[in-house]
C-alpha cells in the first residue's frame, strides 16, 4: 500500500463525497458553503462524542455495578 495508492484512494473518496452530495454540479461558492456547513456539523458531532461519551459510559458502569453489587450484598 504505497503512499500514492493512499492518495488516490482519498481522492476517490473525496470525489464520491462530491458526487453524492451534488457538490460536483454546483458553483464553487456553493461548494465552499456546503463544505463549511458539513464540516461544522461533523466537528460538532465529534466534539460532543469526545466530551460526553466517556462520562456516560462511566455513569452507566457505576449504575449497573451498584445493582449487581447490592444483589451480591443481599445474597451473601
Amino acid at each position, binding site marked *: 500500500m504505497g503512499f500514492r495508492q493512499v492518495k488516490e484512494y482519498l481522492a476517490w473518496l473525496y*470525489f464520491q463525497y462530491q*458526487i453524492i452530495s*451534488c*457538490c460536483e*454540479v*454546483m*458553483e464553487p461558492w*456553493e461548494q465552499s458553503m456546503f463544505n463549511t456547513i458539513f464540516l461544522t456539523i461533523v466537528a460538532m458531532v465529534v466534539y460532543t462524542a469526545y466530551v460526553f461519551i466517556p462520562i456516560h459510559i462511566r455513569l452507566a458502569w457505576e449504575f449497573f455495578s451498584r445493582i449487581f453489587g447490592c444483589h451480591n450484598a443481599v445474597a451473601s
Partner: protein
Amino acid sequence: MANPGGGAVCNGTVLNHKKQSNGSQRGNCRKNGIVKEAQQNGKPCVHKTAIEPLEEAPLYTLVLTYMGYGIGALFGYLRDFMRNWGFEKCNGAVEREEQKDFVPLYQDFENFFTRNLYMRIRDSWNRPICSEPGPYFDIMERVSDDYNWTFRFTGRILKNVINMGSYNFLGLTASYIEQVKDVLDTYGAGVGSTRLEMGTLDKHKELEALVTKFLNVEAAMVFGMGFATNATNIPALVGKGCLILSDELNHSSMIMGSRISGATIRCFKHDNLESLEKNLRDAIIYGQPRTGRAWKKILILVEGIYSMEGTIVNLPGIVALKKKYKAYLYVDEAHSIGTVGSSGRGVREYYGLAPDDVDVYMGTFSKSFGAVGGYIAGKKEIVDYLRIHSHSSTYATSMSPPVAEQVIQSMKFIMGLDGSTEGLQRLRNLHRNIKYFRGKLKEMGFITYGNDHSPVIPVLLYMPSKIAAFARLMLKKNIGVVVVGFPATPMAEARARFCLSALHTREVLDEVLEAVDELGDLLNVKYSRQNKLKHSALTNGTSFDEEESCEEMSFELED
C-alpha cells in the same frame, strides 16, 4: 398458440430464409444460432415469455439518492431566495413587472426543478451533431460560461465519437443515397397535399404493399410522422363511451392520442397480467361509470419494447386475456419492428403468434429503417376505415417521397428481396451484439433492466450528479451516450440508456465496455448483488465460446 397460424406462407418464408443462410455458411466452420436451428428442426425459434425482474438497488443507494435531491432542493430554495430579493440576476423565465400581482406562473415544482436542478446538468442533453447518426458521428463542441444558462459553440468539431445513443439499430441511415437521390430528382421533396386530396403517390402505394407483405397482414397505411400516427389514429378508432386500458409506461404519443379521443383511460401496472385482468373484469362487470351501460369498445394499448426499460411485452398472455374478455389489442412496435423476431418482423414473430391475434399493428420507420414516419396495419376493414377517418389522412401532409424510398429500400433489404441475405446477417449481428453487451454489463455488476433480447439497454445510475458525470466523462472518452432522468423516469431511477447497432463491431463494443467499466468503478455504480462473477479480460477469445454455449443452452431450454 405457439405455431404461427398464418398458414404455410409464414412458415415457408421464414424457412426459406433459414435455408438460404444455412447454405451460404456451410462453407465456413462458423457456428451460430441459425445453423443450429435449421439442423435441429424446421420450426422457427419461438420464445416463451421471459421473467424480467427489475432488480432493486441496495437501500443505502436510495437513501443517498433522495439525500442528494434534498441537498439540491435546499440550494435551489437558497438560489430562488437570492434571485427573488435581487442578490442575483435571474437568468430563467420570470413574469413581467406588470404581471407580478397575477397568479404566479413559475412557482410550481416543474419550474423549480428545471431552474435549479436541470439547469446545472443541462449540458448532457441537446448536443448538436453534424454528421449522419451511424456507428460514429461528429459532435459540435460547445461550452458554457455561465453554468449552462447559455451555450456558445467554439467552432471545433469532435470527430468520430462512438454512437451509443441513436436508434440506428440496423445501421441503415445512409445506405441508399443513390436511390433516394433519384426519387428526389423525380418527385421533389414535398408532396403539397394530404392523403385524401392529392397527396397519395405511387410510392406510398408501393410502400404500403411492402409493409403488408412484411407484417403478413391484410392492409397497411403509412403516415408522415411516427408520433402523429399514434396521436391522430387512436382518436379515429375509439371515442366517448369506449375504454382504453393502457400500460402505465406507455409513450406520450399514445397518451396524447388517448386523451384526444375522449375515451375513458385506465392504466394497468407495467406488464402485469393480473392488473390487466382485474381492470378487464371490473370494466365488464360494472360497465361505464354512472350509467352502468356496457362499454362500446375496450382497447388495450401496449408497446412492443418499452424504450426506457427495455422490457418486451408479454404478448401471449395479453392475447389470451383479450380473447377471453373480447377486447381489442393495439401494439406500438416502434422499437421492436426490425429488431426482434428471427427475421425482424416484430414481437408477434418473436412469440410465434398468428397474425390475426393482434388487431392493430402500429410501428415507426424512424428506428430500424433509418427514415421518418409511421404505419398502421391490420385487417383491411380497419385500414380502409382509417384512410377516410384518420385525422392524419385528412389534415396532415403525406410522407415525403425520398423518405418513402428510403423505407422501401430498407424493408426490401431486411426481407431479403434485393437478392442477398445481408439483411438477415445484419439482424443476426444485432442479436449477437445485444447478447454480448448485455452479458458483459451484467457480469461487470451493473443493474440493467429489460429483456435479454431488446436492443435498448438501460443501466441504472440513480443519483442526479452521477448521470451528469457519466455523460460528461463518456464524451471526454469520445463516446456519446444518452442519460435520462426525471421526468422521463421515476425520480430515484435515473439511468444511462445504450442503443446498440448492427454496425458496431466487437472492437467498438469492447472499447465502450472498457470505458463503462472504468467509469463504473470511478462513480461506484456497480450496484448489482446478483452473481457478481469475477471480471474476466474482455479481449480474449473465451468470450466468443461463452456466447456459443449460452445460445446452445438457451435453445435446449426452449425446446
